């Protein structure tokens, strides 16, 4: 009896395994379409975004009609589940040929061997905003149609009423001026003068608040070696940032309750709002000509804003990378870049596409974002350690917001990041 148990169990287990691997086979590239063209699979994160998806459908239809060698097949995922889907697909060797990814995660995936260098013509990548091009190990692995930028929204009438100077890109507020402006707004009747979006969680924190740190002269990591955060994240400049950030909340100038998004500014519950280009059109509708799009304050080393949004890459397992390259080259036409920009309200990644845009052209109402992005954007550190840096910075900044001792919190964050880098043998930087 014992001897029979083993084959039965083995058969049963094998059936189970076969069923599982059978599921895993979907999504793999290299298939042929009905008319004999090579199919290129493509994944996007834009399932919840009809405006964005519409432009993709147009590009794909145009590309498929333009030639008889390849056919691009798109599959859209909701953003929340997208990264998990990619990691799972990579683990089982089922990555699509073309995939989009959030800028800061690219080095991690390139390092892990999910991606191959883009090898797009230099005149194409050279024409893009620097923050729309993703580099790792001196090679370009990703490129994007747009970038996002943050700015401070204000009402012109409110600033004038409270006697606050309207800053310009050449002459932003200094730290003292910014503090005085907040104090004036508080005295002028705003319970919380500025909404910086602290009720949000996740990547928003490093994206939105590490530029303040950089404006003070600190950084998330020592970018010359990428091996340690020591000095950058816990030096005197970083501590100055932490104390400034903590004071914003302690003095009641900023809060961390309320709704994610820009509604408080639209409802005139806050005087200033530190928020992204994607919220600009709603605010414009609500406020009209009174809306000001201002640079963030200069906290010592010039204003800084985060750069790097969703970009495109080719997977390392793509059976026909030439086809994927052809598609990407095709897709970077100004016509499409402008369509993305005007449909979704994001900054087009080439100057010529910006010129053609309704909102981002020279006379466009959202033109300031283009200049902010060109002048002040800082990419997040291009290292596979970014996943750790990002979540460590988030919890450290939240602790500082809640009143934790700044120096100790930053020291702990540094040792957490450094321990992680060390245990990963420097992520290839040694």
């Amino acid at each position, binding site marked *: 009896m014992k001897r*029979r148990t083993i084959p*039965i169990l083995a058969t*049963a287990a094998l059936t189970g395994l076969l069923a599982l691997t059978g599921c895993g086979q979907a999504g793999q590239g290299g298939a042929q379409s009905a008319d004999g063209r090579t199919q290129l699979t493509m994944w996007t994160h834009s399932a919840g975004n009809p405006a964005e998806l519409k432009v993709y459908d147009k590009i794909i239809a145009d590309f498929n009609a333009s030639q008889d060698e390849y056919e691009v097949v798109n599959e859209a995922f909701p953003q929340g589940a997208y990264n998990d889907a990619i990691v799972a697909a990579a683990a089982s060797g089922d990555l699509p040929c073309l995939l989009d990814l959030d800028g800061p995660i690219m080095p991690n995936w390139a390092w892990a061997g999910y991606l191959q260098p883009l090898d797009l013509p230099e005149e194409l990548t050279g024409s893009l905003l620097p923050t729309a091009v993703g580099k790792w190990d001196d090679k370009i692995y990703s490129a994007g149609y747009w970038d996002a930028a943050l700015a401070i929204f204000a009402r012109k009438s409110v600033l004038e009423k409270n006697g606050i100077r309207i800053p310009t890109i050449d002459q932003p507020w200094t730290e003292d001026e910014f503090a005085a402006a907040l104090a004036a707004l508080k005295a002028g009747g705003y319970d919380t003068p500025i909404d910086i979006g602290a009720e949000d969680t996740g990547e928003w924190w490093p994206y939105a608040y590490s530029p303040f740190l950089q404006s003070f002269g600190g950084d998330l990591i020592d970018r010359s070696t990428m091996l340690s955060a020591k000095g950058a994240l816990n030096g005197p400049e970083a501590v100055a940032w932490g104390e400034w950030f903590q004071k914003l909340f302690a003095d009641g100038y900023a809060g961390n309750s309320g709704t994610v998004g820009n509604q408080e500014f639209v409802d005139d519950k806050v005087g200033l709002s530190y928020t992204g280009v994607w919220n600009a059109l709603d605010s414009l509708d609500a406020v009209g000509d009174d809306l000001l799009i201002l640079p963030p304050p200069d906290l010592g080393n010039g204003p800084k804003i985060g750069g790097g949004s969703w970009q495109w890459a080719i997977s390392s397992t793509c059976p026909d990378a030439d086809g994927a390259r052809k598609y990407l080259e095709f897709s970077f036409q100004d016509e499409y870049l402008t369509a993305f920009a005007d449909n979704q309200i994001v900054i087009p990644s080439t100057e010529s596409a910006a010129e053609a845009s309704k909102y981002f052209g020279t006379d466009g109402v959202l033109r300031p974002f283009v200049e902010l992005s060109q002048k002040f954007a800082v990419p997040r550190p291009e290292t596979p350690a970014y996943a*750790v840096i990002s*979540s460590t910075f988030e*919890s450290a900044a939240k602790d500082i917001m809640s009143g934790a001792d700044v120096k100790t919190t930053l020291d702990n964050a540094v040792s957490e990041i450094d321990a*992680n880098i060390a*245990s*990963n043998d420097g992520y290839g930087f040694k």
Partner: protein
Amino acid sequence: MTVTPPTVAAETPRRSLRRFRSIKGRETWAGLAMMAPAGILLILFLAIPVILAFTLSFTNARLISPNPPRFVGLDNFVRAFTADPVFLQSAWNTFVFALVVVPVQAGLGLLLAVLVNRRLRGVTAFRVIFFVPVVTSIVVVSILWKFMYQKDGLINSMIDTLTFGAWSGVDWLNNPSTALGAIIVLSIWQAVGFHMIIWLAGLQTIPEELYEAAKMDGASPWRQFTNVTWPGLRPTMVFVLVTITIAALGLFVQVDVMTQGGPMASTSTIVFHAVRKGYEQQEIGYASAISLIFFVAVLLVALIQRRLTREKA
């Protein structure tokens, strides 16, 4: 028709077939076939992950990495206890949470069960009301309570009204000294109905005659409770305590939805820390070590509880 004698070659398969066809053989076969679905699922989703977690906890494996995992011995365990203040804080928070939740939730559940065990009009309505939070998704409950706990939320306006503006409450979830307490209150409220139902089931197994006899002996309601109800509830009590303890030690969703372990790690728990390390920061090896520590801790607590509440001969 002539009968051909069976050849030796034909004999062998027939004998094995006969073994299959014998009643005992058939039963074994049927039993194994019936066990197979559950067996395969158990192996795939229980045994393999547990073995994997155990193995990974001694390596520096990462979720995404081109480097092969390396055996690092007990490094991960040493790191958890000596170089990771958030882990120690999380262990402490988990302990405090369980220490408060286990007795309070069990006690409240029993109280509610005794109350709704009466033969009163509309008692079913009460049972339903107490049970509603249990069937509501904990994620939904957490989001609702997050709104209620806000600085200008429902709870603070209630306090404000009740104290005539003398005390307007704190920002419950953003204050390191109140955040864990706030989560404890919500958790007790959410799960107390479940334990009420279990206590209720236990109460209804106690024969009515015992109460009648007690009443005839002139026992007061309190004496009836201590001498009839409580001894009759002993097996239920053991079950309730063990399930609450295990659930309390595994606290995760409320923290993930409401506070993300903050402010200042005051609400981080062992499971939350393991998820944060293993998934957000991709250190699967280290997170497996934390899970293993957690497993051993739960096992120990359950064993101790079992021993303390065992039937004394």
